[in-house]
C-alpha cells in the first residue's frame, strides 16, 4: 500500500449544497439527496457505492444534466464542467474530428485548435489514431479518445463515469498513469465513479460513499478507508473483515474485543468494557503470524483457499464460525508455502483495527 499523498488545501472548483434529484415515477421513484459535496482543483474524489445508489445520477447532476435539480444547488467556477460517460459516444468521423467538435464555436483560431487537439491526443497516447474512424476504435482506445476530448476543453471540473470499464489489467494501469499525470498537469478537479476498488484507491485523494441516494460518508481517503462509519460502508470501501463481539478487557489504550471462541481483537478505538461492538480489519492489514512480531496475535484459523491474480494472492481463512481474508504478495515467501488446509495463527496491529460501539 502506497503512502497517502500529503493533503494540500485546494480551492473549491464545484460545490453542491442541498442537491436533490428526482427520477422515475411511483414505485420506481428514486431520489438523490446530497447535503454537501465539494470538488477541489487538482484533487480526485472517488464516489463509491452499491449498484443503484445513484452514483451516475450524482455525476449527471454535477454536470448540470439533471433537469429536476435546482440549478442554485450547484455552485461552480467559471470553467467548463464536462462529463465522460460510461459508454462514450463515437461521433461519425475520425478520432481527430471527435476531439475537434469539442472546440467548435468557441472562438479559437484554427491554429489554436489544431494545437490543442494534437496535445490532447498525445496526452493519452492516441496520436497515431488521429485519422482512424472513431467508430472502429477498440473499447480501450475509445476511452482514451473520450478523455482526450474531455481534456481538450481544458475543463475546470472533470466527471468520470466508470473510466476503466472494459479494460484489461494492463490497460487499466496504463490509463490510470496517463490520467494521473493529466490531472496533475492541468490541476483539474475530478470526481470519479468506479467499481474497481483497487483502481479507485490508487487514484483517490478523497472518497465519498453514496447509498440509496444519500451521501453517508465523505472525507480524505485514509479516513474513509480506515474509519468507515458503518459496517455497510466498511464493506463498500473494502474493509471486508467484519465481526461483532463484546469488549472484554483493556490494557492501557488498547481495548480487546472478543469476537468468537478463541478470537480476541485489539483496537485503539475508544470503547467501553462490557459493551457490544463491531470491528473491521482491511484485508491487507490482517497478518498471518510467522513469528516476526508484526501485530498482536488474535487467534487461530485454517487456510480455506488461495486465489492469485498474478500480483496479489487473496487468502481466505476459516475460523470456527466466520471467514476472513487477507492479501499476500504473489509468488513470494508465504504465498508459495501456504496450502489449503494449513493451520495458521492470525495477528494484527491494534492501530489497524477499526471498532465502533453498537448501541
Amino acid at each position: 500500500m502506497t503512502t497517502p499523498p500529503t493533503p494540500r488545501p485546494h480551492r473549491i472548483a464545484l460545490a453542491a449544497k442541498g442537491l436533490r434529484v428526482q427520477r422515475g415515477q411511483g414505485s420506481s421513484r428514486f431520489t438523490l439527496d446530497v447535503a454537501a459535496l465539494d470538488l477541489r482543483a487538482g484533487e480526485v474524489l472517488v464516489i463509491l457505492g452499491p449498484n443503484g445508489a445513484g452514483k451516475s445520477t450524482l455525476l449527471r447532476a454535477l454536470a448540470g444534466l439533471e433537469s429536476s435539480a435546482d440549478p442554485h444547488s450547484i455552485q461552480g467556477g467559471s470553467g467548463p464542467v464536462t462529463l465522460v460517460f460510461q459508454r462514450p459516444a463515437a461521433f461519425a468521423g475520425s478520432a481527430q474530428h471527435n476531439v475537434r467538435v469539442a472546440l467548435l464555436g468557441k472562438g479559437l483560431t484554427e491554429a489554436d485548435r489544431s494545437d490543442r487537439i494534437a496535445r490532447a491526443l498525445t496526452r493519452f497516447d492516441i496520436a497515431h489514431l488521429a485519422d482512424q474512424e472513431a467508430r472502429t476504435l477498440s473499447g480501450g482506445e475509445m476511452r482514451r479518445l473520450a478523455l482526450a476530448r474531455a481534456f481538450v476543453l481544458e475543463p475546470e471540473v472533470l466527471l468520470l463515469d466508470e473510466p476503466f470499464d472494459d479494460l484489461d489489467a494492463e490497460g487499466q494501469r496504463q490509463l490510470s498513469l496517463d490520467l494521473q499525470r493529466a490531472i496533475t498537469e492541468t490541476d483539474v478537479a475530478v470526481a470519479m465513479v468506479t467499481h474497481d476498488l483497487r483502481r479507485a484507491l490508487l487514484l483517490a485523494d478523497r472518497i465519498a460513499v453514496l447509498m440509496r441516494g444519500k451521501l453517508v460518508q465523505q472525507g480524505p481517503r485514509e479516513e474513509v478507508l480506515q474509519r468507515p462509519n458503518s459496517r455497510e460502508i466498511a464493506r463498500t470501501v473494502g474493509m471486508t473483515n467484519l465481526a461483532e463481539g463484546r469488549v472484554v478487557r483493556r490494557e492501557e489504550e488498547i481495548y480487546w474485543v472478543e469476537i468468537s471462541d478463541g478470537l480476541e481483537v485489539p483496537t485503539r478505538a475508544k470503547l467501553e468494557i462490557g459493551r457490544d461492538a463491531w470491528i473491521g480489519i482491511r484485508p491487507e492489514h490482517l497478518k498471518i503470524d510467522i513469528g516476526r512480531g508484526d501485530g498482536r496475535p488474535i487467534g487461530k484459523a485454517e487456510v480455506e483457499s488461495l486465489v492469485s491474480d498474478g500480483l496479489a494472492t487473496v487468502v481466505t481463512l476459516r475460523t470456527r464460525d466466520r471467514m476472513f481474508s487477507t492479501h499476500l504478495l504473489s509468488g513470494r515467501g508465504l504465498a508459495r508455502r501456504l496450502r489449503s488446509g494449513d493451520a495458521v495463527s492470525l495477528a494484527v496491529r491494534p492501530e489497524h483495527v477499526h471498532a465502533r460501539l453498537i448501541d
Partner: protein
Amino acid sequence: MNEAEARLVVEITFRTLWVCGAALVTALAIGIPIGIALGGRRFAGRSLVVSTVNAGMGAPPVVVGLGCSILFSRSGLLGGLGLIYSQTGMIIAQTLIAVPLVIGITLAAVGSLDEEWDLQVRTLGIRRIFRLWLLVRQIRMGLLAAVIAALGGILSEVGASSMVGGNLLGKTRVLTTAIMMETNMGNFERAGGLALILIGLTFLIAGLLTAVQQSGRTR
C-alpha cells in the same frame, strides 16, 4: 422520331426533373427538421403523432391526389389560388406524398441514436447550432435513405400527378402521365421509350446518391 417530337420529349423530361426536384427539396426541407424534432424528445402525444406519420407513409398517393384536386378546384377551399392543373399544384401534391416518408425515416434514424447521445454532446459544451450539425452528420446515412425513398416515390407517381396536373401539353405533362397517355392511345413504342428515359433518370440519380453513400462509409 422527328425533331419536334424529340424536343417535346426533352421538354417533358426537364419538366419532370423540375417538378419532382422541387417537390423533393420541399419535402426534405419540411420533413427532416420535423423528423429531427420529433425523434429527439419524448413529449405527451408522441405516439399519436408517430402513428399519424406512419399512416401518412402508407397513404396511397392517388388518395392524396384526389384530396388535392378537390381542394384546388374552383369550388374547393383553395380554389382562388389557381393551383389546379398547374405545376405548382403538382409540386404541392407530390410534396404531401413524400413528406410523411421523409419524417418517418428521419424519425427512425434519430431514434436509433443512443439515448444519451444528446446529453453527451451537451456535456462538451457545444453550442446548439453545432449540436444540430453533429446530429445531421451522425444520421447522414439514415437521411440519405430518406432522400432515396422520397425520390423513388415522387418519380414514380402518376395518379396524383394526373389528377392535379391534368397532363396538359406544354404545361403539366410529365414522364409518368405521358407514359400513361401513350399507352392508352396504343402507342406502346413511344410509351416504352419514355419509360426507358424515366428508368434511366431513376438509375442515374439513385446511382449518384449511392455513390455518395458509399464514399461516406469508407471515410
